[in-house]
């Protein structure tokens, strides 16, 4: 390990005079951030003193006449730190039901038990809420920062293991498409892939994080990969495809090969074809000696000897390549040793392939392969050049990330379509699956626009640029002009002031599928997925109708109905954290249309009223002390600045890019530290994504024997 640290130090020194060019992170060299690592003290683990102090005032007023510690039956509440409350068993962070300080109170009504404190009578509602919120919020307090960072870099940190993982469904499909498009063009390739139903045949990825985190290789994978390799290899030698395939891959690097008939290749041309094809299929040249593992090229060349014809040999080579571990897996075995036997340096080809899959979700193209062939990508300048190239088009990768990050791969199903309110709010719209698709597409397009135009990350939450092009969605937005095909700062269609900003106000994020919006689900969605704030399950023993929407009321808005339903003592502890977040979006109906007034239906489903909507919220209990926002735009702007969001997206993208099957277990990560620092400094979205790979360790691999 120390040897590896020396290697990194050497890299750092060697490159100390190199700066990024054409890159907004130019002030940050690709050297290690050598932040001294000091484990946080326990007392720092819980740190919101204002909430703590407020709670303590209640204890002082209502409990400490007895709880002075003078008797064992009345333990001392005059404790200086939150840690002491936890260590003495008075509270369990985040759990009201397990916190003695809570469940002994007369106000606590969730389940049976002794509830006799204080002896003089129940606390006021405010006092009780101050205590329960303090306990609840203890769950989301994160370890302390070091020098203002949410993550830390340990100088002795080893690189990642980069253990083998299967290509995700999208990566596999994109790789097939890019590989064969070289010879057949995209139209013919798409026809071939459609003919064999390739995309639908590959099992969906299943992961608690992102699709890239699904490492499972099931019997179905085995059979489908076999069947696809079988079909495509046969299809590629049919008719004129054979000559297209042969000429394309031989001409990449023809050497001394000369041929006139694609169906009759000599030994030289066969070797050229195999070599060039494997380079594109694997993203690296096939081994030609036994030095490292085996003579890979010889293994493929034998297929020509065993086949009955050149075409059959080519079919066998394609078949074998598509089933090979070098194609189906991210398998980092193209490495060079370092002074530390535990750490290997990735070759230029391995680095190029890794970059390509992170940023493009597919195999490296000719430019990246050429860079890998002609430059040393372990070298700082060359590496940055490769990264800058790969990040020119992030569309595919970013779209996939966005859909999964925001949990909008599938929007809710339509429900209650015959309800008069549904018909009212969908007037002029065609409520079909296409509408949902264009809603999702608009969000991914927005993220891609911000990345492509080098806009700051904060614009994810503040941009008023519309990406709506579909007439249905435009109708929903009240928009007359479709977004241009290529949107720039200059030609962008923008929403009217005060209506929408950023992705939280887009239809896909607001759509409920029904006639009524659900502010609770909206609040949970934002807290959980965009801010990574832990949400505990509802407590046991709730009344049977707890999970049904509140009844319609002729005199109440949706916000008011949900507020009333969740204002009981057993609900308010959690809902005071959830509801305000959802209420901030009260000016959007269940389809995401902007509404200054809400149509009110009574219990007989009759339209009886129109009431003004109110999106002003106090977020003191939900997110931060002294935080009020006036509307969804104001709220979104807060999110863009919040450390919760920055930390969350850092973890999420790091997880996605590295194909982790679970979120990083530790905040010790030089890569995430670097990502967060850039984000905190106002990085652009593109540079933020780039920063995922800029730690020197990215170009190494730790091998666990």
């Amino acid at each position, binding site marked *: 390990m120390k040897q590896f640290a020396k290697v990194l130090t050497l890299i750092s020194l060697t490159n100390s005079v190199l700066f990024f060019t054409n890159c907004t992170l130019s002030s940050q060299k690709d050297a290690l951030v050598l932040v001294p690592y000091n484990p946080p003290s326990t007392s720092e683990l819980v740190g919101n003193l204002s909430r703590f102090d407020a709670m303590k005032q209640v204890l002082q007023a209502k409990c400490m006449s007895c709880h002075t510690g003078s008797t064992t039956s009345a333990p001392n509440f005059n404790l200086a730190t939150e840690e002491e409350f936890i260590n003495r068993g008075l509270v369990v962070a985040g759990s009201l039901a397990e916190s003695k300080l809570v469940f002994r109170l007369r106000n606590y009504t969730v389940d049976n038990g002794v509830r006799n404190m204080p002896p003089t009578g129940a606390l006021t509602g405010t006092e009780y809420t101050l205590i329960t919120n303090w306990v609840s919020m203890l769950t989301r307090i994160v370890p302390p920062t070091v020098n203002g960072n949410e993550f830390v870099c340990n100088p002795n940190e080893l690189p990642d293991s980069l253990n*083998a993982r299967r290509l995700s469904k999208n990566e596999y499909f994109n790789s097939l498409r890019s590989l064969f498009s070289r010879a057949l063009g995209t139209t013919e390739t798409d026809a071939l892939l459609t003919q064999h139903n390739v995309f639908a045949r590959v099992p969906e990825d299943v992961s608690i994080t992102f699709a890239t985190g699904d490492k*499972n290789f099931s*019997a179905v*994978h*085995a059979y489908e990969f076999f069947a696809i390799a079988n079909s495509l290899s046969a299809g590629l030698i049919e008719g004129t495809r054979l000559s297209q395939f042969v000429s394309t891959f031989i001409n990449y690097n023809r050497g001394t090969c000369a041929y006139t008939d694609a169906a009759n290749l000599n030994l030289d041309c066969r070797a050229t074809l195999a070599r060039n094809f494997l380079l594109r299929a694997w993203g690296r040249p096939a081994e030609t000696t036994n030095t490292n*593992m*085996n003579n890979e090229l010889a293994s493929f060349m034998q297929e020509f000897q065993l086949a009955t014809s050149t075409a059959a040999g080519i079919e066998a080579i394609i078949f074998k390549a598509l089933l090979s571990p070098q194609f189906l897996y991210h398998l980092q075995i193209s490495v060079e040793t370092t002074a530390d036997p535990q750490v290997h340096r990735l070759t230029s080809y391995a680095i190029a392939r890794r970059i390509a899959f992170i940023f493009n979700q597919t195999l490296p193209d000719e430019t990246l392969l050429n860079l890998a062939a002609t430059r040393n990508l372990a070298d700082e300048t060359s590496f940055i050049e490769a990264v800058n190239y790969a990040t020119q088009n992030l569309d595919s990768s970013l779209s996939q990330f966005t859909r999964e990050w925001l949990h909008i791969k599938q929007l809710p199903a339509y429900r209650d379509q015959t309800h008069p309110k549904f018909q009212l709010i969908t007037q002029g719209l065609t409520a079909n699956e296409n509408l949902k698709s264009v809603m999702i597409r608009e969000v991914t397009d927005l993220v891609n626009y911000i990345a492509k135009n080098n806009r700051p990350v904060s614009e994810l939450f503040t941009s008023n640029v519309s990406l709506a092009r579909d007439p249905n969605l435009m109708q929903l937005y009240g928009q007359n002009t479709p977004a241009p095909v290529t949107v720039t700062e200059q030609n962008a269609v923008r929403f009217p002031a005060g209506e929408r900003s950023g992705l939280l106000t887009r239809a896909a994020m607001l759509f409920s599928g029904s006639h009524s919006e659900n502010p609770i689900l909206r609040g949970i969605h934002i807290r959980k997925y965009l801010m990574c704030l832990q949400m505990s399950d509802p407590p046991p023993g709730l009344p049977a109708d707890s999970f049904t929407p509140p009844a319609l009321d002729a005199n109440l808005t949706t916000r008011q109905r949900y507020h009333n339903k969740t204002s009981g003592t057993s609900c308010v502890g959690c809902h005071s954290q959830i509801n305000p977040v959802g209420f901030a979006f009260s000016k959007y109906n269940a389809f995401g249309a902007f509404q200054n007034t809400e149509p009110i239906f009574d219990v007989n489903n009759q339209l009886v009223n129109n009431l003004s909507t109110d999106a002003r919220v106090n977020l003191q209990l939900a997110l931060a002390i002294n935080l009020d926002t006036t509307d969804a735009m104001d709220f979104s702007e807060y999110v863009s600045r919040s450390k919760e969001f920055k930390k969350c997206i850092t973890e999420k993208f790091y997880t996605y890019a590295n194909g982790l099957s679970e979120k990083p277990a530790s905040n010790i990560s030089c890569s995430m530290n670097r990502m967060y620092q850039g984000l905190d400094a106002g990085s652009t979205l593109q540079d933020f994504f780039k920063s995922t790979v800029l730690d020197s360790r990215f170009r190494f691999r730790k091998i666990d024997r």
Partner: protein
Amino acid sequence: MKYNRMNRRMFLQGTGKTLLSIPVLTSLLPCELWAQTTTAPTKRFISVIQGYDLGHNANWIPFTGNNAFNIPQPNRIFSGGRYQPLRDFAPTNSSVLSTYAGSAFSPYLESMNILRSLDFTGRYGHGGAQVLGAISADAGIRPDRGVLSTIPTIDFVLNSHRGFNPAGLPLINCGNTGFGPDNYSYSSVGGIAANATSVGEELLRIYNQLFSNGTLPENGGNSIAHPKYNILTRVLEDYTRVRNSRNISASDRTTLDNTLDKLSDVQRSLTRVSTAQCSHLQLSKTGSVFQIPSNAAVGRALADMITAAILCDSARVFTIGAASISGLFQAQADDHDTISHNPFASFNGKPSWQISGERHAATMRNFVAPLVQNLASAIDPTNGRSYLYNSLIYSTTESGQVHGWGSHPVTLFGNAGGRLTSGNYIDYSDRSKGAFMGADSDDTLRLFSNTPGTVNFSNNWYGTHYNRLLVTILQSMGLAPADYENDTLNRQLYNRTDIGTDNRNLTSLGGYGYGYPFDLTGADPTSWGFRNYVYPGLSNHDLRQFRNPLSLPT
């Protein structure tokens, strides 16, 4: 559950590091090692279901004489409940087991499991397909079955799984139309649940389906291999070379070993006629599956036919309905209403529960026993074990009680290639929780008492959920949860959020198989149907176990 299968790569790793330093080519291994490396046999699943209900008493299943078939409560404890080796009940002419199965199963007790206390989520009946997975069968009586319209039963799931059945061999549904497999085997073709297309009940039609009208090769027929079979051998050799690379981590190696195993399974499936054992004899007996309970020769002929089909690998999933519905017993016009629904009525001096029990026992003796005997005596060359060891036979009668949800009768034969242990009578009940009442289609017709010892049947000790058996079968056949679970197929109880309070705050359900197909999304939870059909199943069981395979004694 105990998984005995030794992963081939695990075995190779265990043979010593010296082997790993060179390419592990099968040709380099000693013969005995090679034999042990091929431990992933082709598997088959055969379900045999006797239509209509069967009463059973406090000590469970089926008692066919006036003296109750009285298997005592098992005397040993394991993680899932209680168990006792079946050999303790070795059937002699006078033993309790002989009244159920006769002596035919005596040699195979070690390959057999009898399970009790597997309960459905809710009431079912009429050949309802809950037995193999999901839905009720009788649209006229169960108008709400449509809510589960896209859920196929597990025979379809297995047969359409490309890992289990790569060659796409046909699913063999044989039985009489209407109340045979048509009533418990469902595909999802066409959006609404479609009944399986039965081959029919006539033995000749089944024969022609299995053996392509007699055109499959006789003894010594040539193996038909896929054109890519040999290339796949070289793909596997490439995997072996890569996994032996020095630039590889332990985790990489495990990953590649798993892939290698899965691809090996694909390759093994690429030969259609597996061995020279394939021999389809002339059909020895014509007749109908319908006659199995009353005609031993018909039962044996079908058993021989299915055995030959397995040896020829012309099908891997067989669903057999040995039902008889009307007019067969005591000249009753409808033995469902007159016998099954009236277990304490008497016909020619026999209580109706005894008639039902005898019919089930006859199916066991006439068909299941010869099938078990055949498969136990034929050796599968892929791993040197019997075909019975490599297969799983599931035999049952349709209902636990008259449309009841309690304690479905389950008998299993075989070990699914070593994935399941066997040889035990297993009771999953927790009798400390007491018993619950069975009920028929209205509250006035309570056939079953919750008080043990009454004259009425009283056997509904709280057990575990029947769905776990379906999950156990699927997993033992080699499927992973991802192969059979998704929220499209399983939408009825998948990720429900509104039943939690009755089930320890359970907020998510998923997995294969359901109880009564009640539309939870639209039903009034206070309605009679919910209270009587759905609620008991939800409230009686810890549904957090819904997706887990059953534990089996080791």
